[in-house]
């Protein structure tokens, strides 16, 4: 989560990723960590707005997860 204070607000960027161990096709014996799902947000606002942005990213992840894995 990056941010830069501008007077009373922050210019921020937040990113939510799923990082997992994967093997590249060129060498399946190799295990590397890679993002298999990724979503980001940028904005200007207060700490409350940053939390809202993270909240929204998590909701997007949940929606995608539940769509891929119906309960």
């Amino acid at each position, binding site marked *: *989560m*990056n*941010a*830069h*204070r501008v007077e009373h607000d*922050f210019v*921020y960027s*937040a*990113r*939510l*990723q*799923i*990082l*997992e*161990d994967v093997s590249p096709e060129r060498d399946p014996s190799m295990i590397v960590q890679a*993002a*298999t*799902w990724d979503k980001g947000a940028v904005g200007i606002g*207060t*700490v409350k707005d*940053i*939390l809202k942005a*993270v*909240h929204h*990213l*998590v*909701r997007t*992840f*949940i929606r*995608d*997860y*539940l*769509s*891929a*894995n119906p*309960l």
Partner: protein
Amino acid sequence: MYQKIQVSIIILGFFILYCPPKTQALDPLGLFPELKDALDQQRRKPLRGFPGVVATIEHIYPDIMLEGLSAEHIRQMVTKLVKEAGIKTATVEDCAMYVADLRKRLGEQGQLDRKVLTEGPCAFPDLYVT
């Protein structure tokens, strides 16, 4: 002055051209809803069959912490939301306990490595806030 405006317009143009969501770039008028569905499906595919997640917070800008927001606070919020949605969550401590338990039961290092990779909370991928 004019140069500054020109540079701003070029940057804005670049942003508009390259930053819209994928579907908007491919189908700006939204004429093909099935294209959006296909891209959504593609994005969700890697999430299929996930055992659970470990919420990890990478970096908090120091000024934000001065406003009372901590990495632990965000981690707890993310974990709570994910848990409430019925997705399994684990912590680094859960993984450590799992490893300690396995060590006790298996002993042998080679077997432990394989087990840790394929089972239990250590096999949960990171839900990474960065």
